[in-house]
């Protein structure tokens, strides 16, 4: 694809601006800002990746992955605002999920520890874990709020805070994992995922692209499960005192 066709394809954004204007959605400004951010960020990342791939350094690769985790943690923490230390909990959970999955992939020989492989794979699993752990903490917050009476019933019967939160933990973890599981069910039929589309556009044989997509699906599921589980277990404690009292 040459630069001219890219510039022309950017005119497609005008359609969304027109619809927003016509329907008085009032999001024209956000579309413009979003588009500009996308261009700037992607260009920037393109050059950084170019440099990191070229340098082929373990240190740079890890630094890039850590940066992605922190940005993801920061973003997802907004969904859990009000929970003390939620940024740390989410960041730790995403890091934990990503670390286990990446280690497994490398041990299994599915990918190699090369920036070209580690960075895009990390991006996908971290992005997915960001969305799902954000969902988990926001649901946890809602459930604690709406189920105070239920939680106090458990506590009054001599349950500790963990036992009293058992049910809402289950709900919150499930909420975080559901989109990933649901999308797994329709994969290939309703949606050709971005990664696979990219490979096919880049000239990779669809059969080969599918193999990668399967791996991506599995790794996203594991990372999401680990991240949601961890963040729920870390966060619920913030709703209780050490004397098992609901705050």
């Amino acid at each position: 694809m040459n630069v001219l066709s890219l510039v022309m394809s950017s005119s497609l954004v005008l359609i969304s601006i027109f619809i927003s204007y016509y329907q008085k959605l009032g999001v024209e400004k956000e579309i413009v800002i979003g588009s500009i951010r996308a261009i700037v960020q992607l260009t920037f990342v393109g050059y950084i990746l170019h440099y990191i791939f070229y340098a082929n350094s373990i240190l740079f690769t890890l630094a890039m992955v850590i940066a992605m985790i922190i940005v993801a943690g920061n973003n997802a923490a907004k969904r859990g605002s009000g929970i003390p230390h939620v940024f740390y909990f989410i960041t730790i959970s995403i890091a934990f999920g990503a670390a286990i999955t990446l280690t497994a992939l490398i041990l299994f020989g599915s990918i190699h520890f090369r920036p070209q492989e580690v960075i895009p794979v990390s991006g996908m699993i971290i992005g997915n874990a960001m969305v799902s752990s954000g969902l988990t903490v926001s649901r946890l917050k809602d459930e604690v709020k709406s189920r105070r009476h239920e939680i106090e019933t458990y506590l009054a019967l001599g349950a500790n805070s963990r036992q009293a939160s058992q049910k809402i933990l289950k709900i919150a973890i499930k909420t975080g994992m559901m989109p990933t599981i649901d999308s797994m069910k329709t994969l290939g039929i309703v949606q050709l995922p971005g990664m696979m589309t990219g490979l096919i556009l880049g000239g990779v044989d669809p059969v080969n692209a599918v193999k990668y997509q399967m791996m991506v699906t599995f790794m996203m599921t594991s990372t999401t499960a680990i991240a949601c589980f961890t963040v729920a277990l870390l966060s619920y404690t913030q709703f209780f005192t050490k004397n098992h009292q609901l705050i």
Partner: protein
Amino acid sequence: MKKIKFIDVGFKDHDDVILKDISMEISFGYIYTIIGPSGAGKSTFIKLINRLIDPTEGKILIDEKNIKDYDIIKLRRRIGMVFQQPYLFEGTVEDNIKYGPMIRGQRDTNVDYYLSMVGLDKSYRTRKVDDLSGGEAQRISIARSLANEPTVLLLDEPTSALDPASTQVIEDLVIELKNKLNLTIIWITHNMEQAKRVGDFTIFINNGRLIEYGNTKAFFSNPKNDLTRLFINGKLTKEGIE
């Protein structure tokens, strides 16, 4: 356990004073009824006893020992609590009654015994909680608390969602339980007649303060405080004097 003692107890939520300067004693083996306008702080008061919350001022002693020095989980088992709208756990009646003993590792709970304590036969054991009437659900929630073998029961308006017949059943039941098991009952009610019927002692809380407490008969026949008199005669609401 013989006595619960409140010494200058207060509870603040941020800057809101919910309870203030509460000093009193509760002797074991009696029924205490708590009355007072909506929002007076009655529920807050009893939550202090099983430490769902802690006082921000003063202290509460059980047998001269600060309740903070008891193991909190054991304390909550000794002091059962029943709410106006019982929250029953999904599943069967049996699951509910077994919950308290189960979490402390005891698996051989005699469910039929606790059912009989609340006047229900053993056919209830396998009933799904969704199929119970309000009165039955309340009785199950009492049985569930009893399975922890408490010495104190805190009742937060246990009959205000029930019809007169079910209310009568619960009243008779609680009095019988108190006698049979030598329980101490602390019973919040909005129903003045109920407070008179079931109480040995009555506590009147208004606007976060303990206004008056004493022997139930004397309390109602000869209230000492003007506010108490107004409240008993239905002339005192949260908004003030009518």
